[in-house]
Every structure is written in structure tokens, then in C-alpha cells.
């Protein structure tokens, strides 16, 4: 049985449906992420789990028991707020002790567990500091320690890294992964940063306009996006407009207007004439001189329009015969050479038949 189940939950604010018929099951020990653009309903879902908001329809169950009607202070889960919401009049130790005190733990246990929690987030020497004396990253850690110290069944984190600068964010990401593994507490994490979601999560639910578009493990989301929105939202991707020309058991032939035929693999029963997009990650597109390997399948000629030299890789934008600009990411792995092609060079691109996926319109 899943630790937390969200069953057909809908939440309306006036005419706006902020959350639409969402169903999710989160397993114990999981690092689960709600990912989606601003306003898609992530915070609303988190607030309903925490008890600050109630669904208009549907149920939220913890360990199989509905949470309906249980006030936030009685739910065995804690939240780490984006603004941290540290108590400014309490020391770091006082903040971390707070959930233990409200739970009525004995004094020496509180002291011991506060010490442990602060050690876990490397803040032992800041125990007697006040929040206004801490840096952003340190406040973040206090908020984490406070949320974890009473061992909740579930820790909800609403964009906890949102207020940190890029470098600190990456550092905190590694710390979060480590921390979640060490304490073994289930995390429900909210973010609109897709890279962060990919890096941290065991599973990700991608949301749009109050709906869950796809819920999968990061690599599945990345390599097999369910639709255009997910494909486009996660990472960079080329979306080529196509129609199905022929589909046998596994082999799929797609017609790209003005370009030619694309060979792909697909297990779904597709009908000829179906329209959609062929989605292809830039790092799976190979770029080479226009005279090479003329007999390959999925080989198209074009011209380099733009390139960005990024050190480890070069990011090419190549205009194909039908005007479509395809993006390709090539590692600069050959020693002694930085770039392989220049702007304006005639080149050819190519990809394996299993590199991309067909997305139905």
C-alpha cells in the first residue's frame, strides 16, 4: 500500500479549477517531485496534503486512512516553506526544538534530538544564533532540520531552494539527496526547475494547468515523454511535425513534409495518416560533413545557422532543407580540436532509428 494516496482530487477557486482530478500514489521512502510551470497547482496540492486547504472533490489518504477533517497540527507530516518561515525570536536550537516541544517530548530527549538534527545539517556551531544572523543557505538548513527533527511520516518541501543563488542551489541539491537517503523519510518536493527535479527525484509528476500530464521516473520522462508538453518542458528537444506513413509491428515510418521519411521504432498500434510530432533530443543528433555516409537512414542535409561553443560540448543549430532548424549537441571529445564545423558550413545530421519518439497530436 502506498504511504500517501491522492485520489481524484479537485480544488476550485471560484471559476478557476486549480487542481483537476489528480490521482497520485507516493510510496514510503520515495523522493517524489511535483514539477510544473508557475500557477499549475503544485502549492495547492501541497497545502491540501498539509491540511491548510481541503479538496472540493476526491480524497487524500495517509497509510490508507483519509486525512479529511484532520487539522494541520494533528497530521504526522511537516512542511519546509519557500520563505523558510523560521521563528525570528527563537535561536536555531529553539526553532528546531519547536516541533518536539509541541509533541510534548521530555527535555533531555529534545536536547539530544536537536543536537542530532543540527549535526545532520552541519549547523552544530550555530545552535545559539538567531535566524537574522544566518545566510540563506544556513536558514534553509535550519528549516530542513526543523521539518525533519520529529521524524514525520512525510516531509513536504515547497520550492525550498527557490531563494538560493545558482551555486548554492546545486550544493544544496546534493545535500538534499544525501539527507533524504540518511533519514529515510518520504519527501514530496515541489519545483518548477526541471533540472532540479531530474537530479533529485525518484519519481516526478509533471503538471500543467492543474492536471498531471505524466508521472514517471526521471529517465523515462526524459526519454519517453508522453506528450508535447512534457517533451518540451523537460530538457531541450526537437519537435518535427510528421504524419504516420506506415506502421508495422515495431517499425514506424514517418513523413516529414519537405524533408523526407524518418524511420523510428514504436510498439503502439498506430494508423497510417495519424498526425503528430517526432521528438528528438539534441544530444542524439549526430553532425558530420555533408559528403560523409550518404547511404545512412535518417540522414538529412543542412547548413549550420548558429553555434554555441560551450567548452565540453558545442550546441549547433542547423537549418534543414524544409526550413526546420534542428538542434544538435556534440561533445568536443577529440583532443586538440575545439570545433568541428563553422557557421555556414554545409553539414549532414543523422540519428539512430530508436533515438526519437512519435508523439500523437
Amino acid at each position, binding site marked *: 500500500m502506498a504511504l500517501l494516496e491522492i485520489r481524484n482530487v479537485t480544488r476550485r477557486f471560484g471559476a478557476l479549477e486549480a487542481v483537476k482530478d489528480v490521482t497520485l500514489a507516493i510510496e514510503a521512502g520515495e523522493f517524489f517531485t511535483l514539477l510544473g510551470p508557475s500557477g499549475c497547482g503544485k502549492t495547492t496540492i501541497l497545502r491540501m496534503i498539509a491540511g491548510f486547504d481541503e479538496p472540493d472533490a476526491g480524497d487524500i489518504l495517509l497509510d490508507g486512512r483519509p486525512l479529511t477533517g484532520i487539522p*494541520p*497540527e494533528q497530521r504526522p507530516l511537516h*512542511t519546509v516553506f519557500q*520563505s523558510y518561515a523560521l521563528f525570528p525570536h527563537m535561536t536555531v536550537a529553539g526553532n528546531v526544538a*519547536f*516541533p518536539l516541544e*509541541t509533541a510534548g517530548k521530555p527535555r533531555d530527549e529534545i536536547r539530544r534530538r536537536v543536537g542530532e538534527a543540527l549535526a545532520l545539517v552541519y549547523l552544530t556551531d550555530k545552535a545559539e544564533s*538567531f*535566524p*537574522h544572523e544566518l545566510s540563506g543557505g544556513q536558514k534553509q538548513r535550519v528549516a530542513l532540520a526543523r521539518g525533519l527533527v520529529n521524524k514525520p511520516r512525510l516531509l513536504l518541501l515547497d520550492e525550498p531552494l527557490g531563494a538560493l543563488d545558482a551555486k548554492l542551489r546545486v550544493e544544496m541539491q546534493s545535500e538534499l539527496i544525501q539527507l533524504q537517503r540518511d533519514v529515510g523519510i518520504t519527501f514530496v518536493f515541489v519545483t518548477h526547475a526541471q533540472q532540479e527535479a531530474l537530479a533529485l527525484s525518484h519519481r516526478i509528476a509533471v503538471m500543467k494547468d492543474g492536471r498531471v500530464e505524466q508521472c514517471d521516473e526521471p529517465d523515462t520522462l526524459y526519454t519517453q515523454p508522453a506528450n508535447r508538453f512534457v517533451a518540451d518542458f523537460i530538457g531541450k528537444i526537437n519537435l518535427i511535425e510528421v504524419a504516420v506513413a506506415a506502421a508495422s509491428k515495431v517499425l514506424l515510418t514517418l513523413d516529414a513534409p519537405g524533408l523526407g521519411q524518418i524511420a523510428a521504432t514504436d510498439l503502439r498500434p498506430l494508423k497510417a495518416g495519424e498526425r503528430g510530432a517526432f521528438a528528438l533530443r539534441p544530444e542524439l543528433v549526430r553532425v558530420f560533413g555533408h559528403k560523409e555516409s550518404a547511404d545512412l537512414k535518417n540522414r538529412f542535409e543542412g547548413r549550420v545557422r548558429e553555434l554555441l561553443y560551450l567548452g565540453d560540448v558545442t550546441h549547433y543549430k542547423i537549418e534543414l532543407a524544409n526550413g526546420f532548424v534542428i538542434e544538435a549537441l556534440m561533445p568536443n571529445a577529440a583532443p586538440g580540436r575545439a570545433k568541428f564545423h563553422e557557421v555556414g558550413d554545409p553539414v549532414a545530421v543523422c540519428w539512430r532509428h530508436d533515438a526519437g519518439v512519435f508523439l500523437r497530436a
Partner: protein
Amino acid sequence: MNAPGTRPTRWLVTAPPTLFLLVFFLLPALIVVLASLRQPGEFGGLAPLTGLADLGAEAYRFLLDDIVYAEIFARSFVVAGLTTLICIVLAYPLAWLIARSPQKRRDLLVLLVILPFASNFLVRIYAWIMLLGPANLLYTPAAVIVGMVYVHLPFMILPLYTNLEKHDPALLEAAQDLGASAWTRFWRVTFPLSLPGIFSGSALVFIPVLGMFAVPELLGGTGDILIGNLIKEQFLDNRDWPLGSALSILLTVLVLLLAGITAWAARRGLHGTEAVS
């Protein structure tokens, strides 16, 4: 080491307030101190000053010799303390409700709090005579407290409201999320964070009550006079200016002492609450 140029700049910034305090606080205070050391005039006021020999501490000696003055001081401080406490208890829920109401209604409610100032102070006290008379409370210590609380309540509500309005609602949600009941949330979060508001409100109530003479005079009995009445009597009725001045100086010194102790205690006990005050 001071960088060149900081000195004149600092002087420019600090000069106006220094000058203001000098002219409107220190100078009058010195005049009063001087008056307290001089002799009363034959027909009131002060006797002409002919030399240093005319100065003496008789007025202070007189005050300290008579236990009645100590009693009036003590009673005044009790009345001021009681008024402050009652004001805190009455103002807190009101300030909290105003701070919690929707933005549009808040301004209206604040306006209602200060609206009584639009009508004359004496008229409002006379209104209390009519209210307290039938209740058989007129000319009792209770009537004095009622009047004092009535007059000073807005000075407690406004600073408290200003403080409570700035509280981050996320803190209360965090406390609730971490298992705190409504009661715990109030005592562990709202109340400690509102202490700066309580302190400023208390200063604005406590100190004026000590000097207030109209309320005891109009609502209190003969035994209810406070320092304010005493000082007023020396200047207007007994025409003993040195004694009145000595009383004023004594009052000022006591209040400054009290304010100093409170500020010191507050600085030690209020760590972190500056963030919201």
C-alpha cells in the same frame, strides 16, 4: 581611523536632532531645575534671584519630609500601572482583530479608533460623569481608572496594531504545521513577536497617566489625587512654583529611570523580535 570628510557629514546629520533636544527638552528642564531651587515669591511665582545664596534645596527637603507626597507618588504609579495593564488586555484583542480584517476595512477601523480625538477631551470626560453617576461609581478610584483607560486606550491600540499587522502569516502556518495548537501558536509566536508593540503602547499610556490631572479631578474623589493634580495645584492654586518644579523634576527622574530599566531589560529579552517591530 576616520576617513576625511566623515566628520562634518556626521555633524550635519546629527546637528538638527541635537539642537531640537537642546531647545525643547534640555533647556526647559534646566529652567525647571533652576525654578525648583529658588524661593517662592510673596504673591506666587518666584522670588527675584539676587545671588547664589538664594538657591537651596528646601523644596526637595519639604517633599521628602512629608510621607503624603510619597503616598501620592506611589498611588500614581499604581494607577498608571493598572491603567496600562487594563489597556493591554482591552487593546490586544481589538488590535488583533483589526490587523486580521481585510485591508479595506482596516483603515476604517483605525479611523474609528482615533475618531474620539475629534471631539473635545473635557466633553468626553463629562460624558463619563453622566455614565458613571447612575452606576454609583462617580468620585471613586474605580472611576479614575475607567477614565484613564478610556482616554489612553487608543495609544495602546495603535502601536499594537502596527506591530501585529506586520506579522508574517507564514509563521503561524509553520507553527501549526509543526504541531502547535491555537493556544500554543498565540503564546509561542504571536505574543512574543508583539512585545515591542506592547512596550511602545505601555510607554505611551503609562507616562501620560502619571501627569494627567483632569481625569482624577473630574471623576475621582478628594482622596484620589495623583502627581498631576499635585503639580497643577502648586502652580495654579498654592502658587508655590519651586515645590511644583521639584515635584516635576522628581517625576521626570523616576520616569527616566523606569524607562532606562525597561529598555535595558527589553534589549536583553527581546532578541529577534526587532525583525517585525
